[in-house]
């Protein structure tokens, strides 16, 4: 028992953690579906006019041109949950990094609450948003001046596939291993101590009895 304990407990902890991750994803999927059905989440396409523009100039043809190295598209007081934002645009020249910032209260935008954009093959940027109510959302689509954007779509809460709920970020995977390993070590130590202590107590008890 003593030898196999650490293997069993470690396996158990990893299984529990893995199933916790999977169940959370399933729960999130179901929860979002319910919210959609209840109407608290709705798919909405934003156009350039719907954003508060910072360091952007709106042209007559509907496209926007950046005027600094840090142009921003901001939605203030969104105050709703948001599952995902997908962004598609065409540009006249290389635009640089595409990022998204959010806040969960009236605080400043910080890098702690930042999502890096990654273009899919068709050029769409998808940002998986954190759970809960989001107060302000800011999209930083460029880090050059003079980039002309033709915003094709900026969809809030688009339909998310079931599988996309199971795409874990590097941070989540890291935390999975860190927490599972730490807990395994903890359980091993606890077991060891209890085993020794209990064993010691039993031996003492038996000796006393025999002495009597």
């Amino acid at each position: 028992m003593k030898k196999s304990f650490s293997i069993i407990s470690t396996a158990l902890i990893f299984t529990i953690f893995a199933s916790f991750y999977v169940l959370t994803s399933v729960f999130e999927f179901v929860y979002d579906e319910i919210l959609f059905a209840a109407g608290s989440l709705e798919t909405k396409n934003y156009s350039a006019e719907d954003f508060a523009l910072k360091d952007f100039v709106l042209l007559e043809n509907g496209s926007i041109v950046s005027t600094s190295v840090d142009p921003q598209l901001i939605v203030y007081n969104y105050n709703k949950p948001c599952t995902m934002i997908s962004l598609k645009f065409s540009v006249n020249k290389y635009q640089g990094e595409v990022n998204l910032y959010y806040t969960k209260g009236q605080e400043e935008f910080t890098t702690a609450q930042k999502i890096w954009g990654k273009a899919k093959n068709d050029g769409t940027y998808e940002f998986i948003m954190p759970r809960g109510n989001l107060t302000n959302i800011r999209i930083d689509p460029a880090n050059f001046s003079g980039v002309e954007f033709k915003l094709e779509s900026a969809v809030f809460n688009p339909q998310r596939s079931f599988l996309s709920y199971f795409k874990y970020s590097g941070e989540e995977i890291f935390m999975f291993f860190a927490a599972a390993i730490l807990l395994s070590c903890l359980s091993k130590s606890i077991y060891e101590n209890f085993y020794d202590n209990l064993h010691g107590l039993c031996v003492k008890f038996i000796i006393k009895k025999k002495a009597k």
Partner: protein
Amino acid sequence: MVAFIQTGICFLAVCLFCIFLIKKLNVPSGLAPLAVLSCTLLYFTLAGCLGILSFSVWIYFALAIGCGVISLVFKGKSSNALLSPAFLLFLISSVGLLCLLAARKPFFNEWDDFSLWGTAAKMTVETNTLFPAVESGFPWAVSQKPGLIIMAYFFNFFGEFAPWRLFFSYDIIMLAAFAAVCSCVTFKKWQTAVLLYAVCSFIPFINVYTRMIYFTSPYLTGYADIPMGILMGGGFAFYYSATQSKHKGNLFWLCAIMGAITLCKDTGMPIALLCAAVISMDIFINCKGNELVFYKAVKGLWAKLAFCGSIILAVGVSYFGYSKFLGSLGVATATLGGEGNMSAAELVINGLLMLFGLNPLASGVPFVEKFSLVFRNMTNAFFTKEITILGTGLSVFGFAICILIIAYALSADKLHRRRIALFGSVGLLSFIPYYLFIGFTYVFIFKGEQGINLIDYNRYVGCYYAALIIGAIVLLCLSAIKEQRFISLKGGVAMLVCGLALPCAEMIISTISLGRKIPTFDDLKIPFALFCLIMITILLGYYKKASAFVCLLLAFEALMLFNYLMPSHLCIVDYPDVIFDDINILQSNADSMNKSIGKKSKIFYISCEDYTGGNWFKYHYALYPSILDYSYGGGDIADRQALGLQNNVTLDVSIGQFAAYLYKSSNEYLFIDSLDVNFVNSYQALFQGEITTGLYKINKKPDASIYEQEASGTQQSRLPNSIAYSDYVWCMDNPEQFLNFTLVDKGANIK
């Protein structure tokens, strides 16, 4: 995938040697990786100096296979010797890291990656020659030590050079050092090994001191500082762990480790000497001479002397051997260059004289004022400059001392306690000579403001902090697996207080010393919950294994600090690909140009927006094996006189001088990265049609008359002294008749 397998083969060779060492030479399995990698580093450096690099790699593989066969076929130690938590952790984490790096393919990111480390490694790989002997476009730091670069060469031997393979070669040296830290732990207490290995793996982040906006590069950098510091810690780990095993002969692998530290970097020699000094001190005080299997006849004090002599000799041999090689290439090694341009001995003597308020030598006289400024800044920096994840230098010392005190209190082994006391005094004190040495280099080598402002202070000092903490953790690890002191409830409570004091003291020190923002409850929610969990378990009867408790606490604290200070999307854990977008575009430009050139040639570079020269270095790296000409040092270039410009331009070069330089030099191509109006107006005559960015072929017609002309001042300003400053430059008349450029490659993404 191909590169993954190619790198994997090199790693496999290292593993085969490890198996040989464990089974045939009785090296404890946790220590084998460090010994093998150090020897590999020395072996390839020697081969590089002898000029037989590619041949030596094949020999290496032949030896690896031979050793593998011998250890697997012939009877040696049983295979159980192979299995230890440390060795398994090393294997798992190395393979994991290899998969991660191969999948993500990170690129170089920082200045010196391009100006030295990465470029030097790429040159070595492309030419199979040690980089000082390779032609490059500029007079650079050829005197830099090649140890880590040569490891990158080995792991890049098959296939094409890739930065992530260089990162892997650096990282497994660090992982081997971490394995050495917990090498004494058996499977019975595997949790101690896992926890301490985890704590160690946070140590490369020691130089990260705040939540940053930018990507931070631990594990993904070509800089040698942190690997060198961790290798020094690995030296301590190897020594303390090897003294625990029966075969004291293993201590002689330390010679290889000392040599490897020396060859890591310019400052490697003082680091290696200090490491050797701490170890020697321990040998003299805490070891029995008879136990050292040096040579049967040599006993007692003589054996100790011989051992200490041999590790110090290893430092000397590798240092002077490499200097000799540089000397044979005609590189000046007698002086250290920089502002003072003195020899190493002169530097130390001058520094010490000034330190004690005496009159320095003649060469040191101009530095007296700078000396006092630099040393005032150095003293302040140690107490107030928050340069590490733990806070100031003072709080790093506080942290190390806390660990040592706990390790001391835990152990019932008298010898081990003496050892901890010695490390606590000598190890920490030996920081002073190192700190002084760094101070001297700021005074005598770094130029003006750079020295006074202590440029890159955290890099130079951080490596020593890393070594100190690793040393402390090794001793804690040994305390945890040895005979315990406290087995009563009273002792348990004492340990509980002691263990709690660790994070508290840590927090108090860092808060007082710099008024660092105290973490809010929101930041610490999860760690706090876990912390409560531990407290409860202690109350439930955990008091008997206080050391395991301390290890857990340490691991939690490391994770907590990491979680609090290091956003995972800005480091190796979860960095986005987009941070390497710019450099990947640059590399693809360079690849397309190299393709249209077709062969190795020399290229003149123009970038009117590149005031710092950063892009010059990036293209110099990316275009290799084609060589980028020094190109006057880069920056905006124009004929100021002809255009009648009022404002300054970085390079004031007339069209005649420009043409004459290109005519006389061996440049075959001209690469325009970015241009401005002044450039177009100045040199339009040499181009056929409109000037755009892109790669141009230089066409020369014979019989141009070139004469010398007195140079105007500004043009020389960016040329380093060693590129032959002269008052005269070449010039030619009617340049457009003899020289013109034709567009070869527009370059897909050039600005």
